[in-house]
C-alpha cells in the first residue's frame, strides 16, 4: 500500500514556525470529513509542534506531509504528550464507565483541556493526573512538591481551579483565570 496510514492521534513536528499556518490550514480542510482534526501549537526553541487528531478515524500521513510536515512523532515535552494521550484515551470511555451511569467524555471538553494545557504547561512542568468526570468533563490534578492544584473543566471554554501550598497554607481559586493558574503551575517547576 503506497499510502501511509497512521492511526489517529499522531504527533507531527511541522518544522519551523512559517509552516504552522500551512498545517493549520490542512487541519481545517480535514475537519469536514473527520470528527476532529485540530492543530495545537506549543512553543519550543526550534520548532512549532502540533498535535493532530481525528477521533477514532485514520488519517493520511502523506496528506499531512504535503503541507511540509517534516517528522512524525517528534516532540519536546514528554509530559505534554503523556497528558494529551491520556486525555484522548478518555474519549474511548463508554457511557456508564464508572459503574454509576457516568456520561462519556465530551470531545469539546478534551479539546479545551488540550488547548488550556498548551497555555499553562512549559517544558519542565510535571504531567498532571487526568481524571474523567461523571458529566463528561475532565479534571486535571497536580499533587506534588507541596502543591495541590485541581482544574475542573465541565463545559468547553470554561474552567475553574483551586490550589494550595500545603507548606505555607497559601490558597487560591479562580474561574477562567489563566494567568493565576499559570503562576501556580510555575510553582511545580
Amino acid at each position, binding site marked *: 500500500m503506497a499510502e501511509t496510514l497512521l492511526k489517529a492521534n499522531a504527533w507531527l513536528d511541522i518544522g519551523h514556525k512559517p509552516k504552522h499556518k500551512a498545517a493549520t490550514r490542512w487541519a481545517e480542510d480535514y475537519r469536514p470529513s473527520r470528527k476532529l482534526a485540530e492543530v495545537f501549537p506549543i512553543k519550543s526553541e526550534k520548532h512549532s509542534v502540533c498535535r493532530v487528531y481525528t477521533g477514532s478515524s485514520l488519517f493520511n500521513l502523506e496528506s499531512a506531509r504535503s503541507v511540509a510536515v517534516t517528522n512524525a512523532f517528534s516532540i519536546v515535552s514528554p509530559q505534554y504528550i503523556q497528558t494529551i494521550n491520556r486525555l484522548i484515551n478518555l474519549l474511548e470511555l463508554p457511557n456508564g464507565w464508572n*459503574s454509576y451511569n457516568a456520561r462519556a467524555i465530551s470531545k469539546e471538553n478534551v479539546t479545551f483541556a488540550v488547548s488550556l494545557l498548551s497555555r499553562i504547561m512549559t517544558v519542565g512542568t510535571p504531567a498532571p*493526573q487526568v481524571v474523567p468526570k*461523571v*458529566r463528561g468533563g475532565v*479534571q486535571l490534578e497536580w*499533587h506534588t512538591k507541596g502543591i495541590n492544584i485541581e482544574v475542573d473543566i465541565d463545559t468547553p471554554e470554561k474552567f475553574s481551579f*483551586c490550589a494550595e501550598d500545603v507548606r505555607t497554607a497559601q490558597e487560591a481559586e479562580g474561574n477562567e483565570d489563566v494567568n493565576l493558574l499559570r503562576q501556580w503551575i510555575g510553582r511545580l517547576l
Partner: protein
Amino acid sequence: MSYCTEKFPDDLSIEAEESLLRRIPPDHIIFDDNEKRWRPSSAAFEDDRDGDPMSVVLLKILNRDKREPSSVLKGHEDYALASITAGLARQYVQTVHPQPLDEEPAHAVVCGEKTKGKKNAPKKKFAQAATWVVFEERPHPT
C-alpha cells in the same frame, strides 16, 4: 426544606462512625505525591450525571447479610473500594439515606451539594479522608 431533606431524609439510625462504601473506578485512583499514597480523586465523590445523589453501600448491612465488602465489586474486578463515614458526610451537610435496591440491598445515597466551595468542597474532603477497604497496592509512579 431542602431537596435532600425532603426526598432523601437523613436516617439518624445510621451512626456517625458507620462506613459508607463507594466503588472507585481505575480512572479515579490517583497518586498524591504530597501524601505519598494512592487515594481516590475528588471526582469519585460527585453525584450522578442526572443529578441523582451519590450512591454508596452500607457496610453494616453487608455485615448483617454476612457479605464480604469485596462482593460490592462483583463485575468490576479492577475497581477499588473506598470508605467514608456517615459522620463525615453529615459534617459537610449531606444526608445519608438508605435506598435498598433489588440488586443491592445495602444501597444508600449521600445527598447534598458536593462541588461548591472549591477548596472546601465536600468531594475534596471525602477524597482526602477516604480509606481503602479493597485496594490492590501498586508501586509509586516515578
